[in-house]
C-alpha cells in the first residue's frame, strides 16, 4: 500500500469541501426540472441560428481571407517572380516553389527575368493568416473571399499554379482592389516606382 501523502504536491492544490448534500440536492429532480426548463425556453425562442446555404449566403467581409490568387498585371504577365518571401513568411510552411529563368520570347508571359515554374500551396497546412500577401514585394499573391472547395483526398489540396494563377481573360480576373488599403492605392499611383510601371 502506498504511503499517505503528507504535503501538497503543488502550491496550487486546494482543499475540496466535503459538505454533505441536502435532501433536495440528493433527489436530483428539482435540478433536472430546472435544466429542462431552460431547454424548453429555447424551443420557443424564434431566433434562427442557421441559413439555407447555398441559396442563402451569410454576409462576408470584403477582406475575408480565403483561397489565394496569383495575380497577373495589366498586360497579362504573371507578377510572381519566385522570390520566396511568401514561403519564408509562412508560419505553416505551406508554400513551396521552384524558380526558372525566363527565356527569350516569353516576355509576354512573365513580368520579370525569373518566374515560378512550380508554385504550390498546401491548403490543408495553410492557416489563412495572410502573411504571404503582406510579404509579397510584387503584389502577386492575394487572399480572396473565395472558399477552398472540399474534397475527399488529401493530395488534391496541394494547389498548383493551374488553380492559383488567375485566368488571362480580363472578365474572369479576380478583383483584389478592396483588399488594398488607402496607402497602397496612393503608392500605386506613383509611376516613379519601377514596381508600378
Amino acid at each position, binding site marked *: 500500500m502506498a504511503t499517505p501523502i503528507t504535503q501538497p504536491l503543488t502550491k496550487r492544490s486546494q482543499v475540496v469541501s466535503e459538505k454533505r448534500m441536502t435532501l433536495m440536492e440528493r433527489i436530483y429532480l428539482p435540478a433536472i426540472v430546472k435544466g429542462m426548463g431552460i431547454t424548453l425556453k429555447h424551443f420557443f425562442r424564434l431566433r434562427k441560428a442557421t441559413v439555407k446555404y447555398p441559396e442563402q449566403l451569410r454576409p462576408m467581409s470584403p477582406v475575408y481571407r480565403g483561397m489565394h490568387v496569383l495575380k497577373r498585371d495589366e498586360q497579362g504577365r504573371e507578377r510572381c517572380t*519566385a*522570390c520566396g518571401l511568401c514561403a519564408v513568411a509562412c508560419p505553416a510552411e505551406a508554400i513551396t516553389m521552384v524558380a526558372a529563368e525566363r527565356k527569350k520570347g516569353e516576355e509576354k508571359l512573365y513580368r520579370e527575368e525569373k518566374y515560378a515554374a512550380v508554385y504550390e500551396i498546401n491548403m490543408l497546412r495553410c492557416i489563412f493568416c495572410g502573411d504571404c500577401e503582406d510579404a509579397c514585394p510584387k503584389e502577386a499573391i492575394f487572399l480572396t473571399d473565395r472558399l477552398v472547395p472540399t474534397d475527399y483526398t488529401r493530395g488534391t489540396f496541394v494547389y498548383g499554379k493551374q488553380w492559383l494563377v488567375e485566368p488571362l481573360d480580363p472578365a474572369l480576373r479576380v478583383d483584389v482592389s478592396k483588399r488594398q488599403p488607402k496607402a497602397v492605392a496612393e503608392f500605386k499611383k506613383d509611376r516613379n516606382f519601377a514596381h508600378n510601371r
Partner: protein
Amino acid sequence: MPKVTIDTIEIEVPEGTTILQAARMIGERDAAHRHVVPPTMCYYSKLKTSGGYCRTCIVKVTKGSDKDPRPMPKPVASCRTAVMDGMVVENTTNPELLDARKGVTEFLLINHPLDCPICDQAGECHLQDLGYEHGLSKSRYAFERRTFEPIDIGDTIKLHMNRCILCYRCVKVAEQLTDGRVHGVINRGDVAEISTYIQEAVDNDFSGNMIDVCPVGALTDRTFRFASRVWYTKPMDAHRKCPTCSGRAVLWMKGNEVLRVTGRKDQWGEVEEFICNACRFDHKDVKHWTVEGPRQVDRHSVIGANHYELQLKQKLLTKAAPDSTPVGRPQELPGA
C-alpha cells in the same frame, strides 16, 4: 604601439594598422563591440590595394594624434587611413557621419536596380544590408538608371552589370589570383563597367572567386542560377583533397543535393581561403566531400531562418555546463 580610440573604446594596435583594421580588432576582441566596425563595400583584407573606392567606411577623426590633436577636416576612408598614437575616431557615435554614410549609400544605389526578389545574392548581399541600415526607401534620382543586358563570362559566371557598384574587388582577384588578366574596368565615370575584353571567357583555376568577393549580385554563379533562394539552402562546412587549393569550402545543400559551393566567409563577409573552380563548379556531389557539420550562421541573418542548428548546439552546450549560460539567451557564436 599606437593607441587609438574608436567610439570611446580604446585599443592598442601595431604600427601601420588602418582604422578599419583596428575597429575589426575591437570587434574580434569583444563581439559586443562589433557595431563600431564600419561597413565596407570595396575593401577586402585578402586582396592587396583594395579599398578606397566606395566611401562606405568613412569615419570622423576628431583628434589626429597626441602630437597633433587637430581634428581631420573631412570624414576619411577608414580602410586607407593609418592610425596614429592617441587618435580619436567616431563612427556610430557621430550623427553627422551617419548622415554622410546615408548619402554614400544613396549614391551607391543610384544605378542599382531594386531587383532583390530576382537576384541570387539576396540574403547575403552587403549592399542589401547597407541599404537596410542606412538607405532611404525612395530614390531621389530623376534620371533613368543605366541598364545592360546580362552577360555570360565563361560558362560558369554571369555578369549583371546593372547591379555592379564598381568596387574593383573582382578586378583585384583577376590581377592577384589568376595569371594573365583578361578582366577589368573599361570606360570612366558614369559609363564605367567591368568587362572581359570582347567578352572573352575568364578561364583559369581561380576565376570563380570573383563570385565570392562580389559584394552585390553583379557576378553570380551560373550553375546556381535561380536554383534556390539562399535561405532555403543549408550551409555545411566540408572539405576535400584538392591538388590546387585548400579544398575547405561551404556546401549549400538542399536535402542531399549540393546546389552551390562557396568559400568559407568569416564574420566580416570575406572568404577565409580562396577555392579553385574545380571545387566550386565540378564537385557538386556530396560523396566528393567530407562534411564536417552545419555552418554557424549569424542569428540575425535570413539564411538562418527555419534552421535549428544553433539551438541544437546551444542545447548541447547547456547540457554540458548548465550554470555557465543563462537559459533563453543563446550564446553569440562567431562566424557568418
